[in-house]
């Protein structure tokens, strides 16, 4: 490209996972790391690109990717070639060899450290995130998905369109229980308090239990163990933003792997059908589309050909909260300016 001319198709550039910089003529490369995982060779390549084409600095993004700023628009093609190693090592789907990332709409799939590292995780978050990335990428629709190992939700899945929270069903072996009550104590202090002691043994309120399996972690005798099956809570359509930021709300609990995967993949057909053709940069949060179509229609699409596992429970109707800034942004009570307060 001629360095003096800035005749650049920004639409194409953005789709190719480059950000438009406020510095005219510069861009930033967005490195996709599904599940928030990167091998050292790829990491070294990020460093090499930043050194050679950028300004020697790298941004760590909120969605567990890397962003290399300060790249000259003229170098995009070369940077794409350099990205090839990372794209291959990370197993990210690609359309053109040496062509960089083929899409940027569907954001990097986030995952907490998961069972490979974390004592509390109920499944392999990274593996599931990478499997989903394989299934949905590349895609231009603006979809945010995150996986977290337990209901601590360290991955902040509740700010995503699809939040997948790991669950285990605690299995209780009465004969191994000595009634030390540590499960009861920790469930109460660090979780929801779903356990109580009845005649020296433990009773679990199955409806209250969130499947965090803290009881399993804290049981000193292996009276509590995790179910062989991995289960998931699916939370829907959380978001940040100017108009109506809100937490994702519960949609499913005790769902199995296949149910979760199908539901996520199904959302793209819904977006193909109902995305506002006039949406700015053809992107809008899915929640606003659901406001137009109604939840029933959304449900019809995401549940297409899904036969949930028998244990899976589904929320029939969902109501979201959050502040509606488009309806007013007053502070709720006793608003005052600090400088004008009464002594």
């Amino acid at each position, binding site marked *: 490209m001629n360095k003096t001319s800035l005749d650049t198709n920004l639409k194409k550039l953005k789709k190719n996972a480059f950000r438009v910089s406020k510095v005219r003529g510069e861009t930033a490369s967005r490195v996709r790391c599904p599940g928030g995982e990167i091998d050292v060779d790829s990491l070294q390549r990020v460093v090499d690109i930043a050194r050679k084409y950028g300004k020697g600095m790298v941004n760590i993004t909120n969605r567990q990717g890397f962003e290399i700023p300060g790249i000259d628009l003229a170098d995009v093609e070369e940077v794409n070639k350099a990205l090839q190693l990372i794209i291959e090592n990370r197993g990210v789907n690609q359309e053109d060899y040496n062509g960089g990332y083929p899409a940027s709409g569907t954001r990097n799939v986030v995952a907490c450290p998961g*069972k490979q590292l974390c004592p509390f995780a109920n499944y392999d978050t990274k593996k599931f995130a990478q499997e989903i990335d394989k299934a949905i990428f590349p895609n231009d629709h603006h979809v945010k998905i995150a996986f977290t190992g337990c209901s601590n939700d360290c991955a902040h899945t509740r700010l995503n369109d699809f939040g997948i929270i790991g669950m285990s069903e605690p299995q209780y072996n009465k004969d191994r*229980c000595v009634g030390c009550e540590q499960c009861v104590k920790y469930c109460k202090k660090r979780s929801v308090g779903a356990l109580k002691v009845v005649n020296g043994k433990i009773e679990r309120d199955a409806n209250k239990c969130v499947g965090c399996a803290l009881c399993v*972690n804290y049981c000193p*005798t*292996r009276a509590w*163990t995790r179910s062989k099956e991995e289960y998931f809570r699916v939370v829907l359509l959380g978001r940040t933003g100017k108009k109506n930021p809100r937490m994702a709300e519960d949609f499913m609990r005790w769902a199995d792997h296949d149910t979760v995967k199908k539901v996520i993949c199904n959302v793209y057909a819904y977006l193909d059908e109902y995305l506002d053709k006039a949406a700015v940069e053809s992107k809008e949060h899915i929640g606003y589309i659901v406001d137009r179509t109604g939840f029933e229609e959304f449900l019809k699409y995401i549940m297409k050909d899904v036969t949930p596992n028998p244990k899976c429970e589904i929320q029939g109707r969902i109501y979201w909260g959050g502040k509606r800034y488009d309806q007013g942004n007053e502070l709720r009570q006793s608003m005052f300016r600090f400088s004008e307060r009464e002594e």
Partner: protein
Amino acid sequence: MGFVYKTEEFNKVLEALESKYRIFAPVLKVGEGRFRDTDVIRYDYISRIEDAELEERSDFSFKEILMPLSETMFYFTEDEIKEADYDARPVIVLMRSCDIHAVKRLDQMYTGNGPANDWFYERLRDRVKFALIGCGKACPNSFCVDMGSNKTDEYAFSIDMIDGKVYCDVKDKEMLAAFEGAGGAKDNVEPRFVTEAEFRVERPEEVTVELFKDPMWDEYTKRCVNCGRCNFVCPTCTCFTIQDIFYTDNGRVGERRRVNASCMVDGYTDVAGGLVMRKTNGERMRFKVLHKVYDFRKRFGYDMCVGCGRCDTVCPEYISFANCINKLNARVKEVSANV
């Protein structure tokens, strides 16, 4: 008398033994560990030697066969009691040398400590015989050599699994027929014992009363979370507590249970009136450590701890009991030098 078997031949030995005995052995329980997709090795009944974990030390000890984690002792109605039934069939327990030494400690506490023997322990104990699992290597964190529990000849038969072959030394005459009929080759067999350990432990000979309030225990007040895992996995811990249960449908009938207790866990030293004798985890650690490597010896002439190392491996806070013994020993020397 010694025998060498292929695995399938040895399973015939087990089959023959099973006409009289049940076989209780360390078993790898897949997925039953603390964390997702971690395992635990604990004792269970087996029929085939492949189902036994003979390589790694079990996380929980054999003692569950003699003092179940939770055991119903008797049932009561308004004016009658009935002892709980138990499975009286004889059992062969596969265990390592350290654990066979641990049995002596359990026997001491339940049947050689004061005028009365523990009836519930005895009835379980009488049906149990022990088979030795030979040790090809020292277990992680173990210090059996320093505790003198690395060797034993008190076993019905021994098992050493080496390169897919099972080597047995049979001492129990009653069981000999089962071994002779399985087709193995006769040979001179010596079970393997560990004779060298990486980690050395030195016990204090005398512990003076100054150590009772020594600041060395404060570290454990800060580090220990009083979960009691060290006690529950210990092959020599014998404490239990009693639960009297009144059935919810009819509060006039119920049962008395005993469950394993831990001197580290809250409630252990609570007494009527609300007094707690050992409040801090440091005090509890002191009690446990001194009981294992000093107080028991004062009473019975030998130390309670057998050095299996399970308590080190299981501690979620990485507290090393073995290292604590060494610290204690060093502290005892320091204090006595300053007197």
